[in-house]
């Protein structure tokens, strides 16, 4: 319960910053995706049904707070959660650098999912150059804020949860 409250609080603050203050420091319309960092955290530390539900809620919250159709980011977040969950069962992801790299890759994966879904819903012709530039910027910015978010979650003392398979 405490874990859920802490994550909900960090998600709310992250969303607030993403929609206001980060635009001051961002590169154009691109801002760091704090909710994605949280989703990676869930995949690494909350490997449970509650963790996957948390990833879904993070995406749905992002959909609700932006102009996107409901379910778009929820799909992206769930794919990221599953990939991080499967990755950290096979690879050692424990230090800051590996987590930052994981967030960078997760950002690209989520973007790829969103692009595929968007391309099947709306036309994106002629915009690939600007989109691909944005993807790299967002992945870089998200991985830049990742150490701070992981540190913040670490000091709250949320215990890791792994449901045995």
């Amino acid at each position, binding site marked *: 319960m405490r874990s859920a409250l802490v994550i909900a609080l960090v998600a709310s603050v992250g969303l607030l910053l993403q929609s206001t203050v980060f635009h001051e420091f961002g590169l154009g319309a691109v801002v760091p995706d704090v909710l994605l960092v949280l989703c990676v955290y869930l995949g690494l530390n909350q490997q449970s049904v509650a963790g996957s539900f948390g*990833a879904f809620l993070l995406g749905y919250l*992002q959909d609700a*707070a932006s*102009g996107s159709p409901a379910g778009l980011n929820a799909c992206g977040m769930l794919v990221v959660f599953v990939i991080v969950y499967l990755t950290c069962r096979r690879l050692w992801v424990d230090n800051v650098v590996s987590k930052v790299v994981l967030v960078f890759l997760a950002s690209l994966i989520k973007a790829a999912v969103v692009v595929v879904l968007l391309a099947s819903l709306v036309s994106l012709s002629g915009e690939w150059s600007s989109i691909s530039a944005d993807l790299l910027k967002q992945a870089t910015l998200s991985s830049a804020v990742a150490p701070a978010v992981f540190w913040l979650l670490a000091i709250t003392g949320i215990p890791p949860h792994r449901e045995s398979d």
Partner: protein
Amino acid sequence: MDFLRRHRVLVSAAVLLLMSLSLLSISVRSKPNRDPLAEFVLLVFSPLQGATEWVRRGLSNAWFGYVYLVGARAENEHLRERVSGLEADVVRLGELEQTNARLTDLLRFRPALPIEVRGARVVARDPQHWFRSLVIDLGRQDGLRPGLAVLAPKGAVGRVVEVGRAASRIMLLTDNDSGIAAIVQRSRAEGIVQGARDQGCRMNYLRRDVDVSVGDKVVTSGLDGIFPKGILIGEITEISLEHRDLLLSARVEPSVRLADLEEVMVVDPQPPGEVEEE
């Protein structure tokens, strides 16, 4: 059963993924009816976003207005505002001149439509870069409803797509889903200005034989019933042939710097009294 228990994390993720896809399919098909969570998030977050934006703007003003450049910034801002006002006047007067020329032969003019304009403050921007939207501090309680046009002193901004109690979401004219009926001011060529994200907008469906050139101003035609006629949208920066060389498409640089917007105006062509009468 044992398989489900052993892989319950993956199974739950797969079920939620299917749910998300279904949700996406429903929300795309019934786009005007946004889900209730979006309205709830707007209700809860807009006061917080407003407060955060207020603090951010205060700190930013303190830094730029007093610490960074005392006096010079204020003068610069004043001159910029004056230039943008004059630019808008030039376009408006050009539009008026052409309208006047067309109407000279007419004996009677229609009475002006009752248009209500409300000022609003931008309290938040889209938290991700896929879509182009803003949140403003006016909502249902201020008489706003989906479909109203949003303007800035330099031209068109977008339209209201989602209305909460005290806040609303604006879809910017650079959003992929945005479409505005427009005309080229000089030649009166008609087209639709559609959003193209970072590339600004594109004026599509221009007939191949129309007179269009780089530098032409594009204004609203008023045919969409959302934007009043003659509002500046932007300037043509590039022209290309589209649809197997049958139609022209022009890239339009919006006249309003959408990334820096702090205040906007919401235009209601049918104020509440008028709507009720209908």
